């Protein structure tokens, strides 16, 4: 496989933004491009991840191209998925060897609608969607399955939520939780067994990343090399899966070369506290790894940006020299249906 590195990453997030999508993306593309030392003319491929249903406007990702300056015409692609899958497409594209740099971005404004209801439209249209099960209700089914199996308790979930929100407070799209774990456990359920603190608040935001290969990686001092990446998907029907285990994360971790490896940093895409616990378990993380020092989804969660944000946060820890090795995870679909694992490392 050709060696590809993340050479820059920038993100922006707000609880509710007054910028539109183009204004949000413009903020991060400039920063990511400048930090990479790579010129617009050297970018051979541009790919984004977004979800039209966040704003309710079809083909909204086409208008977003204004922020990229698509003239002369560019080689461009889009996935109606988390930006992590746009990252994956860019990585695959760079494997062909004819181009040396790609621009990846993701954006979304969850504030425009009710995300938990919007997500019911991604479900099986015959057996699930007519019941309009919202995203929190479905996530709660997985939490219950984990509690029933003794994998975690509501207290464990509250502790994780509290730790993530504290770590993520600096990213501005979330506020830290001051209450004690006991006080959190006394608060009402949103959908039992999930309480408000267990659910990452949704935000508006955008993120951009530059991938490079060949000589272009040398434009930065500490590129974050992609040592392995893989993604796996499980059955859509929740009742056909073992929700107390993330088999696809385990398999993706194995295929990406993450199994049994030490990492300084792990960035997990978990908008619910119990998912954080389940994915850490599936990755087989040792006790000494720093999990979600960025706060993960609890720092900022523009839904379709958050997975790319985890890869970006993990890469940034290598780029800025605070870590030598990192693993990042991204997820898509109800109850961790599809999962990606990416192993990153500094220069060998």
């Amino acid at each position, binding site marked *: 496989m050709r060696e590809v590195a993340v050479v820059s990453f920038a993100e922006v997030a707000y609880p509710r933004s007054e910028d539109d999508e183009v*204004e949000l993306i413009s903020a991060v593309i400039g920063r990511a491009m400048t930090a990479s030392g790579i010129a617009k003319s050297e970018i051979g491929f541009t790919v984004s991840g977004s979800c039209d249903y966040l704003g309710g406007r079809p083909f909204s990702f086409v208008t977003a191209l204004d922020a990229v300056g698509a003239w002369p015409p560019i080689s461009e692609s889009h996935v109606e998925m988390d930006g992590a899958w746009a990252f994956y497409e860019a990585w695959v594209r760079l494997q062909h060897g004819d181009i040396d740099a790609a621009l990846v971005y993701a954006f979304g404004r969850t504030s425009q609608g009710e995300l938990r209801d919007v997500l019911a439209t991604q479900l099986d249209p015959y057996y699930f969607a007519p019941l309009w099960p919202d995203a929190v209700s479905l996530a709660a089914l997985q939490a219950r399955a984990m509690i029933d199996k003794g994998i975690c308790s509501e207290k464990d979930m509250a502790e994780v939520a509290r730790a993530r929100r504290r770590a993520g407070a600096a990213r501005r799209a979330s506020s830290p939780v001051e209450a004690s774990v006991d006080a959190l456990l006394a608060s009402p359920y949103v959908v039992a067994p999930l309480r408000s603190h267990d659910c990452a608040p949704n935000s508006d935001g955008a993120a951009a990343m530059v991938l490079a290969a060949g000589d272009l990686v040398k434009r930065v001092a500490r590129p974050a090399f992609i040592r392995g990446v893989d993604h796996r998907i499980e059955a859509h029907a929740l009742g056909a899966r073992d929700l107390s285990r993330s088999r696809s994360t385990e398999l993706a971790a194995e295929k990406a070369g993450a199994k049994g490896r030490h990492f300084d940093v792990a960035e997990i895409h978990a908008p619910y506290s119990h998912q954080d616990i389940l994915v850490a378990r599936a990755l087989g993380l040792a006790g000494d790894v720093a999990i979600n020092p960025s706060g993960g989804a609890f720092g900022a969660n523009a839904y379709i940006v958050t997975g790319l944000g985890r890869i970006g946060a993990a890469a940034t820890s290598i780029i800025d020299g605070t870590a030598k090795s990192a693993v990042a995870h991204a997820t898509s679909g109800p109850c961790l249906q599809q999962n990606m694992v990416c192993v990153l490392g500094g220069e060998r």
Partner: protein
Amino acid sequence: MSEPVKGIKSPVRLEYTVSAGRALSRFLAALTEARLLAGRCSVCRKVYIPLRSVCPTCAAPMSEELTIADTGTVTTFCIVNVPFEGQTMKLPYVYASVLLDGADLPILHLIQIPAEEARMGLRVKAEWVPPAERRPTLESIRWFTPTGEPDAPFDTFKEHL
């Protein structure tokens, strides 16, 4: 046994509160004052209407905002003959791309003219609704009407087709 099921009704209804972003909000607000707000790219110097935050070819910010005239040239048009839900104009009617004087990008609007007289190069002017009826929407312009000037030569708008 009843007829085997062949299909299901699968309605989707989602409610949103959409916000227009900073640049578009300024453009829409200016319409209530019968002003057309455009922006000039700091790099290529092209004038874009509606006002937007970045130039789509340069990805660069606007260097200035300017009000442009409400007169312009029809670059291309279509004649709508087919009735549809939400239709307000009597059929057939003309929907055109209007290159406003001073702008480098056309806007789309209705032309108040018999369909058989519509043509490329037609000079038009906006007819604004009365001040009390103006809202932050392009419907504050009821339609564009011919000015009576000679048609604009093809060379003056051939780059904007």
